[in-house]
Each structure stands twice: as C-alpha cells, then as structure tokens.
C-alpha cells in the first residue's frame, strides 16, 4: 500500500510493499521479488540497469579501485550479512573512546550519526522547516497585521490596537505573513487565533458604538443592518478594519441562518462567549505542541554551524530502512548465493543525517557532506529533499555541495515522488548551488528565498557533479508518482518493486526514487572501480550519455498541480520527463568509459 506524501514533507518517499492491517502473518504474494536492476532489456526483457551484462563485458579487465560510497540517509544496518563486508573502516580510528584522527568526533569507525547524542540517545521525530521558520520569526511578526498603511498589533494589557514601526525587512515580513501562514500549520493557527482577537477588538471598540448611535435597540438589529458600518468609513484606508467587518457580518449572518431568532444582542453575547476564541486557542496550542518536537536528543544548536562536534557512532535504528535498502542495491554481496546481488564492490560509509519523518536540518546534511568529502568519498548518495528551507542555513548546504564539487566527488540525489513537474518548482537542495548570494539583503530581494530554487528565467551556474534520478519500472515506464522535469531530473533508473536488504538481516520489496538513485550510485561505483581516473564530472557525462533511450515513447503519468492530483492520468513523452530521455545502462556506461 502506498503512503502518500504531502508536498511539504521530507526528502524520502518510501513505499514498502506490506499489509494494511497490523498482523504477524502476511498474505502470500504470487509475485516473485528480485533484484531486477541487474537485468537488461535484450537478454531478460526488463528495463534493468544491465549490470550483469556489464560484468560480462568487464570479465577480462581488472578492478583498479574499491570506491568509497557515502550514503547520507536514515542510517544503514551494517550487521546485515549481505552488507557487513562492504562497510568502510576509518583507517585512523580505533574503538578506544578517543578521537584518534582529531576530526572532532570520537570512535567514528565506520561513519557517523548526526542525529543523536553522546549518551547514545537518538533523535527520531522531526518537525518541518516551515514550523522552524515560524519559531524563528514569531517574536518579530506574530500577531502583527497590516492595515494597508500601518503595521498594528493588539496590545495584551490595554487590549488596544497599537501602531508599530514598520519592519526593517519588509520582504521577510511578507514571507512570514503570506508564505509561512500557508506552509506552516502552527503559523496558520496563530494567524487565525490572533485574528479572532482582532475581531473582538473591532466589534466592541468600533462597530458597537457606531451601531448604538444609529439603532437604539440592540435586539432589533439584523445582519443586513451592518451594511451601515461600511458607509461609516474611516478617514484613511484600513484593510484590516474592512476584513474584520466582512468577517463579523459573515459570522452574524451564518449564526442567523442556523437560528432565525438570532439578533445582534444575542450575537454579541455568543461572540464574547469563549467558545469561538477558545476553539481557535485550542487549535493554536495543539499546533504549537506538535511543531515543537524536533531533534530533541541532540545537544548542539542547529542554528550555529560552528557547533559541529555532536552526534554518536550508532548508525542504525528501527527507522533506518531507507538507507539499508539503498545500501543493498549498491553493495550487497555478489559472491554469496543468498539474497540479492548488489551492483558493485565498494565500501559503504553510512552517515545518518536524514530523519525518517519531518524535514532535515541543513546543518546536519552540510556536515555529513563535508565528512564524506574529508574522508575521501568518491560518490555521495544524498537522501535529503524538501520544498522549504531557511535562507541562512541553506548557505551552509550550498557551500558543502560546492566543497564536494571542488574535491571531485560525485553527488547523486533522488527526485521526490509527489508527481510534480520540477521545472519552476521549489526543491532543495538542487544543482543551482553554483552561485551563492552572500549579501543578506540580496537574499530577500526577490520573493523571499526564491533565489535558492531553480528558475529558467534566471539561470545560475549549475553544479556539474550533481545528478538527480527518478524511478522507473521493469517495463521502462516511470513510477506514476515520481517527480519529473526536462531540466531538473537527469535520468531514470530501476526503482519500482526492487528487492533489497532490509533491517534484521531480512529482505524487502520497495518502490521509491531513492532506490533509483541508489541504482545510479551503484552503476557509478562500478564504472569508477574499473576506470578510477574518471573525474566526477566525466563520470556524470558517461552515465548520462549511455542511457537506454526511451525517446519517442509516450507514457502514463500522475501529475500534481498546485497541491491537487489531476484526476486523469496524463500522457507524456518520456523525453519531457528528464534531460536524457532514458534509463541508466551500466553496460553502455562501461563501454563508454573504456573509450575515455
């Protein structure tokens, strides 16, 4: 059964084939599970990554290097029989509770976990970026409304609307008031709650006295009579007053619809009755509580990048299934007769920096990338995606990606599976980390943090070591729910119903664009192991130019536009779904690499 992911949630979409009901005995499946990414269309009639065929081509050649592949994800089960011989050993660290290699981390023998603390407790529950942004900005902007001319806020003590000096950063105010109050549940509830209090203010400090002057008797006033208040306009434009008047008229009207005996006197008393404001307050407090939970076990300050020595060396929790599945595709033992065959012979460096629910923190991901680069990773499989990001913290992540580019590391990442056309859509990180805006003012110059996302009108330098992958199935068709884009997705790869290593020394079938990205990482590692002289950029070129072409093929696709799934499946051309119009092909890739 598929788990639907909301637009604003975390990097990973993982659809694990399993039962709906909580049961111990699972129904017998008639489908056979396989590591079909090893197969090819000509020999086996499936659009696998042609890995077996690549091995046949390479049989007379020598492996020249064992590539180091860092998996920045939710953790990896390094005890799994199929993976335990493919895990990186930090050459300079010994299990002696000392930081032997002086990198600030103690006993990072096989990788590192950024989501936990020194007592061994693990951080598992994360909130969303939009909520963190609310907490960051609420002191400045919470309960602040704009009348069209002035900025006002209800003073708690005097219960009057007081005028505030205009915010120093207007763009930031709009970011809070317009964007966050849509993308953050707690910001939305906060606005709703404070607006109710503004309504109360206007009703009893403005509208009521005006009405009393015109109508002698409260109990005779009907909703239609409030029209009078529209004519008693204030000297200057006040959109807040107008909005409040509209709201009160509407609420009064609705109340009358339910109760024909309703009148203004009754309305006032029911309005002051705590029910209306109390309901809004309860929702607000509930949202606050929900949003506050995040990364609680960590001991560092996520807003301070220099505070960088934190975490522990425990690489696996019960939420580490995504990383474990990915690791199996890349590196599961090919020489034993059990389970699945991974694509290449590599050392896996697990870096646990991505939560399995909620949004990642830029700091954790940036530090994980730097760790991988500093410890000589050849390839990074980066499982971290979101549609919202903090403008200042994004800089750390962009700099880390640049650092990887400068040090010849290939970064492979997955599209999300929200059926969104990524051209013109917000997604972070992305390949446009090439140009950095250091000036703060610059960052809010256009619509808030829009500069961080890809826009065709304003192309910034794209990183050349960066690949984005989406999932395809045995028939060579895209996963119905995968994101797609002619500019932002580079190629497709096997990622539907792929069988791989799972927690507790088991195996499981999974569907996700992360599985597809792992397939590409495996193929990249395979090429690198025979042709280590290829740079990250050359490796990307080889992979993209050697795809199995799906040009000219029309495929079915689910599409989500502005938060709504289109009811009918769309028919799109494969070449419009990604840059190369094709599916990764290890055999063609090693042949192309041999020519370089």
């Amino acid at each position: 059964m598929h788990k639907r992911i909301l637009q604003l949630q975390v990097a990973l979409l993982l659809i694990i084939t399993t039962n709906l009901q909580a049961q111990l005995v699972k129904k017998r499946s008639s489908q056979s599970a396989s590591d079909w990414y090893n197969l090819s269309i000509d020999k086996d009639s499936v659009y696998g990554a042609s890995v077996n065929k690549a091995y046949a081509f390479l049989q007379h050649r020598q492996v020249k290097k064992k590539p180091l592949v860092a998996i920045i994800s939710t953790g990896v089960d390094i005890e799994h029989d199929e993976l335990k011989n493919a895990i990186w050993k930090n050459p300079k660290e010994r299990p002696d509770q000392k930081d032997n290699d002086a990198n600030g981390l103690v006993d990072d023998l096989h990788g590192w976990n950024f989501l936990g603390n020194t007592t061994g407790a693990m951080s598992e529950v994360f909130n969303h970026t939009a909520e963190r942004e609310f907490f960051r900005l609420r002191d400045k902007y919470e309960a602040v409304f704009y009348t069209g001319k002035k900025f006002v806020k209800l003073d708690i003590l005097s219960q009057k609307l007081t005028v505030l000096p205009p915010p120093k950063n207007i763009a930031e105010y709009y970011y809070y008031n317009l964007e966050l109050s849509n993308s953050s549940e707690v910001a939305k509830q906060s606005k709703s709650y404070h607006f109710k209090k503004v309504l109360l203010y206007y009703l009893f400090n403005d509208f009521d006295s005006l009405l009393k002057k015109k109508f002698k008797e409260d109990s005779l006033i009907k909703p239609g009579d409030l029209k009078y208040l529209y004519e008693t306009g204030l000297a200057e434009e006040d959109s807040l007053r107008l909005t409040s008047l509209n709201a009160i008229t509407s609420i009064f009207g609705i109340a009358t619809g339910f109760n024909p005996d309703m009148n203004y006197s009754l309305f006032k008393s029911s309005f002051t009755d705590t029910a209306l404001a109390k309901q809004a307050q309860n929702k607000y407090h509930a949202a606050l509580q929900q949003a506050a939970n995040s990364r609680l076990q960590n001991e560092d300050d996520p807003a301070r990048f220099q505070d960088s020595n934190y975490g522990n060396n425990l690489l696996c929790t019960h939420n580490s299934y995504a990383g474990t599945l990915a690791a199996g595709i890349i590196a599961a033992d090919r020489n034993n007769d059990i389970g699945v065959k991974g694509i290449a012979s590599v050392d896996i460096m697990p870096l646990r920096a991505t939560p399995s629910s909620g949004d990642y923190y830029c700091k954790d991901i940036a530090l994980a990338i730097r760790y991988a680069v500093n410890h000589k990773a050849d390839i990074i499989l980066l499982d971290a995606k979101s549609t919202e990001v903090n403008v200042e913290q994004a800089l750390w992540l962009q700099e880390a990606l640049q650092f990887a580019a400068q040090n010849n590391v290939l970064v492979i990442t997955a599209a999300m599976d929200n059926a969104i056309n990524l051209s013109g859509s917000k997604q972070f990180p992305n390949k446009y980390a090439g140009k950095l805006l250091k000036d703060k003012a610059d960052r809010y110059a256009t619509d808030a943090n829009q500069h961080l996302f890809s826009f065709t009108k304003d192309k910034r330098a794209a990183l050349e070591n960066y690949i984005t992958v989406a999932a395809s199935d045995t028939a060579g068709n895209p996963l119905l729910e995968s994101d797609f884009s002619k500019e932002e997705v580079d190629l497709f790869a096997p990622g539907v119903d792929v069988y791989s290593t799972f927690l507790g020394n088991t195996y499981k079938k999974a569907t996700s664009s992360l599985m597809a990205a792992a397939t590409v990482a495996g193929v990249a590692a395979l090429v690198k192991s025979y042709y280590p002289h290829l740079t990250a950029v050359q490796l990307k070129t080889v992979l993209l130019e050697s795809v199995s072409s799906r040009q000219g093929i029309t495929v079915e696709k689910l599409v989500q536009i502005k938060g709504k799934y289109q009811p009918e499946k769309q028919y799109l051309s494969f070449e419009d779904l990604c840059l190369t119009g094709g599916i990764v092909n290890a055999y063609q890739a090693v042949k192309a690499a041999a020519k370089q």
Partner: protein
Amino acid sequence: MKQLCLMLALTLTGLLCKQLNAEAGSVKTNIGEAATMVEISGDAESGITRSKQLTIPDSFTFKGNLITFTEVEISLKSISGKCLFQQQLKKGANSFSYYQPHLIADIYLLTIGKTSEYIYLTNGVVTLTGYFDDLNNELSNLEFSGIDKHYPFSEYVTALPRPSNPKNEWFETLSGSQLSAFTFIYQREIHGFLKPFYDRMKPADFESESGQWLQRTMDSLQPFSSGIVAPDFSFPDSTGKVFSLNQFKGKIVVLDAWASWCNPCRIAIREVIKYYSEFKDKVQFISVSVDDDKNKWLVANNKEAIPWLSLWDSTGFKPPSDLKSKYGFQFIPFIAVIDPAGLVIRRDILDTKELYDLLKKLTDD
C-alpha cells in the same frame, strides 16, 4: 492415540507394500513419539532390501530466530488463555525453541510485543524468522513456515463488511477444528451461519478449544435458531389498536424490526416496498419499530409510507426490550420469515433480494 497411530501405519503400509503382515510387527506405538513405520521392499532374487522410514508427526515444535531493536515478549497461548510458551526477546538477535509432545490442532494466539494474531497450528514444525519492529509493525519482516493450514483463514476472513452467509469454497478447504476455529475468528454468532460449520465437524474435533467454544455458542443460540416456534408478541399500531403475531397463523409472515434512527433499516423497507404488491395477498408483512420516541417513529413511519402493518414496541432497543430479547437479535434491521404454522423458517436476513427469492419460492406453490 495408540490405536490411531497403529491404524494409520497399517493403512499406509497396506498401500505401499505387499508384505502387510510382516510389517505390522515393526510399528512402534509409544505414546508421545512419532509413530514410525518401516516399509521394506525387496528384490526377491537378489535378496537386497531397501528400507524407507516414513514419519507421521505427532508432536509440535515452534522455533526460530528473530532480530528486534527493542525488548519484547513472544508468547503462544490457547483461546482460553492457557500459556504454552513464553520468552523474553532482547535487543538484537534471538533464537527460541518450544516443543510439545502433542498439540491439538486449533487456533492459538501468537503475541510478539504489542501485536497479536490467531494462527491455526497443527502438529509438525513451525518456524518463524526475520525482523520484528514493535514500534511500527508495518516495518516488521517476518517469515513463517509450517503453517499451511492457516493460510485459508487470512484469505477468507476479509476486512468488514464480510459476507453474512458462508461461501461454498470455504467448506472445500476447511475441515476438522479449522471449521470451529474459523467461526471463532469470523465473529458472526448467528445460529444459521454457524450451523453448516457445526454440522461438518466430527466428535473428535470438539476436543479443541474452538470446538468447545462453538458447542457452547450453538447451545446458547438454540432458542434463536430457525425451525423453532416464533415467539408471540403484541404491539399497537399508530391508532393504538393492538395486534399479535399469533392472529396471523395460517399465513406466511415477514417480521421486520427497525427504527427511525436506523438508516439501513429504512433503506431495506424502501427496497421491500418495491416488490411488496407481488406478495401482499399471500404474505403478511409486519414492521415493528424499536424506537424509544413514539413521535420519531410516527414521523418516520409517515415518511417511508409503510403500506403494511406497522407496530411499535415501546420497550425499545436497549434492555429490557421485548421483541429484541424474544428474538435474540443484536442489531437491526432484523428480518425473519415465519411459515403459516408459526415456525421461523429463516431469520437474520440482511439482503432484501434474498428475502424476495425466499418469498417467491414460498408463494409459487
């Protein structure tokens, strides 16, 4: 037990080997051990004999390996709560093994951490391996072997709403205590539903706890089965005039218990109104409302424009309720058909098409 083993041994030997009499003596009959039988086939001329051992499992073994992140308890209990096996699993890799000389084939409750499931088990070896996640059961990855007789349960016992009448294919697959185990899990305690299962069981099958449960349930439902005399009742119509069931002896009667607040009941009434005129000469329809509120009954009665006799049981739906306790129904609509002699010929009918077919059959004579 001794005799059972011996008989089986002899039967198999009889099928496979000609030298029947010679083999009888080689059967072991100790209680608690697998009865072994040795088949000897011989090549008369060369004198070479080959022997093959066939084992009929007469014991139960449950074993396996489980990896878990949290400490959990694994246990196996009977329906009545008798604990067969219990073990604490620690974080990491665990193995367990349980042996019992003889297991009565039946469903048993397997519990691991917070998750439980009834599994049908028989003598033999059952293994369980894999990964268990107590915090999120959907992420568990468990493999069972040796529970072949359990699989029909998960295939037939689907999510609600379930068929209210048994399907023939079930009886092709289920036998012995599987039948009573099935009724225990299915949770439809209606005499008419349980009877085909009950009738197919053999005396030995009632040794099982689910068999005993079924027997008790059937006994308690006996007063509410078909073929018994329909209990009489007397209720007023909207004018206050009182009618009794017995005054309609000699006619086929359709009894329909409903209420204004029961939407499926009202839908059923509308469905029956569609074909009512076809039967109204030969069949007496009676709707009895179990509304607490007379006004609500009257409003609904008018709204639905019930064309046949419509009465009101003021004792309502909650105990002590007259009609409900007499006829032993737990939910409404409750529809029963009573023959001219006053016997309940079918009850707990939920499908108005089924009612139509039955009435057609009864009136076509």
